[in-house]
């Protein structure tokens, strides 16, 4: 970075225009994009000039023209301010500048920074201020000159911290803005561009976006997940006509979970003939089998799947594929997206699968989802600390079990389950025993009576970064139970793979690259069966990448991995969450959706969380700071 001609990135000035700068700049803006050298870069946190021949006035003109398009119009200072700035730069670069134009520009930039409603405009004008301040002579000359300045050629990227954190890169500020203005049909359209399961993710997404929400630096993150549900509940879906000519190539997808559905949607949009095989009665994969209906009503799942079927995707429910090679005869490519449904070995002594009351958690949840009758018990132990454990415990309450305890080997703060899920379980009366692990099942006369447990203490951090639990010798104790559920992780079922032809990972999942390519050319893999258990949205992202991989394979084209509006190379490292010149944030409390009262909800599997009403949704959407980052990249020619 110290070799650049000029940089104001991050507010730190590196100026090498007249000899070497003494300041060493460590702010990371990549100076290469693929094989291209970047000559200039302009975005909310400054400008970087890597070629002394770049005309900064023309660069600023191009940047402001693009940045003005994202000024929303909610305040006149931002919207019209940007138009006026853009107009002034236009006449300056076209050779029609007036005396005093640069001073006017400066005044407007200052006013926009200090007196706009939200963050976007205040931040977006910052690099122009840097440019005028540090290239004042160039601006003054341009304003005085009657010769037009040739425009720069550039590429534009637009993202936001939340959007970048989302594995499927949804335009989050975009749909939030539409929700704020009660425009649900259009919001749904924006969501569906990247997300084929708006109803499912509006209820169950782990919401990486919320963890990256800039608003959290002031009061608290936006309720993005709950907001996404609003257009999915209230907006109308219009069938999307495919503009692409249908292709003859057929693709089989094994597994109708988030990865398979996402791949199906993207492949169908590309014109492929897509058929999806699943052994369950309703599409959804683990979202059907593993997420209880009180979190995700089946009608919602079916709705989302119906919209994918409307694209021409053919579903084969209740169809178990026994051998993938059989499919290869009829389909040009096969995507394995069968998830991870096989419980890990519990490693508990005396675990007799036939003992009444001993069940694997995912099987317990699947049985409830498919409507099998399960007798309620008095005392239930659930082993594990993830979302599956919480789902098991809350479901056990709902089938009439009175006393449900989760036993977890680490402490509360290390639990991988979502915080709101843990809190909901606590509210409903689920008990927790932390820093303990069952080591032996206790039975009397072939009746389950409990489990012998041992206390744990936290030792050194392990490979996951969490402190490793270590058993404390002699601390054994007994917990009574007539039902024990294990929820300690799931593995992929590899029995349908062609024997010895597909490479596996060390943890027995299918080895696949970023685009799902396995060691067999016709076979692709995505989602939990390849990555191990992960979230719905990560599986959807993997499904989309695999769809791109399959498209590349079938069309014999190179895979387009860097889409417009999505960052690649080192650009996601440039600190999107930093605000350069934030407007003053008007304090507003986060809104949470209403929930059914505990006494009502534990009686059955009715949905717990309600949808925001229109007013609450607008109020919550109003909290969005619109942290869009417009980036202008000038690549070296040739």
């Amino acid at each position, binding site marked *: 970075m110290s070799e650049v001609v000029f940089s104001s990135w991050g507010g730190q000035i590196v100026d090498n225009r007249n000899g070497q700068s003494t300041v060493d700049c460590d702010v990371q803006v990549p100076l290469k994009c693929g094989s291209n050298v970047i000559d200039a870069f302009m975005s909310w946190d400054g400008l970087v000039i890597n070629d002394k021949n770049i005309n900064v006035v023309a660069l600023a003109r191009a940047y402001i023209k693009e940045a003005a*398009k*994202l000024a*929303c119009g*909610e305040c006149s*200072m931002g919207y019209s301010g940007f138009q006026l700035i853009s107009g002034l730069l236009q006449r300056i670069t076209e050779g029609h500048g007036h005396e005093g134009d640069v001073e006017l520009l400066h005044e*407007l930039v200052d006013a926009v920074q200090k007196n706009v409603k939200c963050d976007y405009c205040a931040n977006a004008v910052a690099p122009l201020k840097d440019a005028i301040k540090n290239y004042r002579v160039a601006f003054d000359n341009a304003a005085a000159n009657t010769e037009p300045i040739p425009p720069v050629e550039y590429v534009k990227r637009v993202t936001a911290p939340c959007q970048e954190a989302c594995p499927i890169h949804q335009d989050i500020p975009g749909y939030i*803005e539409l929700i704020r*203005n009660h425009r649900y049909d259009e919001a749904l359209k924006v969501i569906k561009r990247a997300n084929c399961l708006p109803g499912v993710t509006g209820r169950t997404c782990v919401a990486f976006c919320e963890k990256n929400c800039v608003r959290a630096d002031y009061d608290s993150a936006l309720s993005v997940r709950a907001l996404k549900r609003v257009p999915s509940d209230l907006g109308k879906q219009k069938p999307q006509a495919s503009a692409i000519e249908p292709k003859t190539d057929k693709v089989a997808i094994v597994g109708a979970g988030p990865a398979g559905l996402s791949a199906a949607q993207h492949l169908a949009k590309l014109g492929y003939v897509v058929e999806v095989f699943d052994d369950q009665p309703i599409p959804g994969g683990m979202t059907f089998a593993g997420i209880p209906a009180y979190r995700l009503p089946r009608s919602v799942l079916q709705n989302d799947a119906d919209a994918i079927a409307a694209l021409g995707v053919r579903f084969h429910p209740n169809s178990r594929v026994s051998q993938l090679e059989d499919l290869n005869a009829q389909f040009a490519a096969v995507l394995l997206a069968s998830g991870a449904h096989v419980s890990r070995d519990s490693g508990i002594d005396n675990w007799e699968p036939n003992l009444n009351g001993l069940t694997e958690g995912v099987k317990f949840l699947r049985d409830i989802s498919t409507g099998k009758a399960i007798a309620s018990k008095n005392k239930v132990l659930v082993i594990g600390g993830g979302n599956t454990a919480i789902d098991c415990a809350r479901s056990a309450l709902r089938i009439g079990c009175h006393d449900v305890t989760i036993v977890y080997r680490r402490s509360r703060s290390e639990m991988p389950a979502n915080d709101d899920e843990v809190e909901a379980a606590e509210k409903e009366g689920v008990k927790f025993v932390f820093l303990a692990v069952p080591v032996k099942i206790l039975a009397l006369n072939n009746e389950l009576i409990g489990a012998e447990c041992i206390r744990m203490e936290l030792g050194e951090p392990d490979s996951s970064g969490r402190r490793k639990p270590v058993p404390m010798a002699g601390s054994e104790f007994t917990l009574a139970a007539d039902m024990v559920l294990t929820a300690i992780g799931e593995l992929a079922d590899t029995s349908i793979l062609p024997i010895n032809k597909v490479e596996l990972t060390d943890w027995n999942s299918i080895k696949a690259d970023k685009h799902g390519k396995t060691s067999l050319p016709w076979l692709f893999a995505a989602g939990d069966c390849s990555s191990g258990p992960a979230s719905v949205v990560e599986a959807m992202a993997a499904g989309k990448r695999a769809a791109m991989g399959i498209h590349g394979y079938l069309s014999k084209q190179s895979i387009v991995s860097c889409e417009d509006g999505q960052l690649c190379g080192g650009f996601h490292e440039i600190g999107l969450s930093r605000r350069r010149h934030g407007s*003053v944030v008007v304090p507003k409390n986060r809104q949470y959706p209403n929930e059914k009262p505990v006494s009502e909800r534990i009686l059955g599997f009715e949905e717990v969380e309600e949808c925001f009403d229109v007013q609450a949704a607008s109020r919550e959407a109003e909290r969005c700071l619109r942290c869009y980052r417009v980036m202008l990249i000038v690549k070296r020619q040739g």
Partner: protein
Amino acid sequence: MVKLTIDNKQVEIEDGATILAAAIKAGIHIPTLCYNEELTPAGACRLCVVEIVSEKDPVTVSSCNYPVGEGMIVSTTSEAVIKARRIAIEVLLAQNPNSSIIKKIAGSLGIEAGRFTIGKDCSHGCILCRLCVRTCQEVVGLSAITFEAQGLERDNNGAHVAWDEEACIACGSCAFVCPTDAVTTVDEGDKRIIQTPTAKMVFALKACTKCGSYYAPEKQLAYMAKTANLPLEKFDLCMDCRD
């Protein structure tokens, strides 16, 4: 209750109130264009900017939507405030150079003519304050007017306010609240004509069954009958002919 100081005056007001409400209570005038005490503040016109001087680094904020804080010291006349207001009104003047209210506020801030012009046609006069949108939603109880913001891939028409003619009941509240007359309503014979920045809408008026005068839009009467759960016949007579 929260105590704060505005322009050296002590004010006490309930927690959660805005700085503007506190200023009004203290009898301090702050210019506004998009504010109405009946509506959720929009923070659109940026004229109500004040400076919170009690902050470590004094900041300017829009007083219509910024909540009061205990011990807050606010200036409505500081140099930063005057500078911000003057440029805000100049920007509004560029948007609508003919509006009498904008010219009046500009004059009060010592500005006769703005230094800025917007290249494109802005003769429709709308300054995107959204008083009409908020009135329709929050007072009338409908969403016949929506704000179509300009964001990603929606930049073809720019930001604008759009009327849904089907949902509109022709009550004319939007024209009543519009500060720049960008939307107007006029009754001509048996028709009410609402002219918005982008469209002309014509609605039928209902004649009084007794005196025959056209007295209210049919759609508005139907809406009132429905919301009050009354038969439509209850609205047959004009106000003058009712007992």
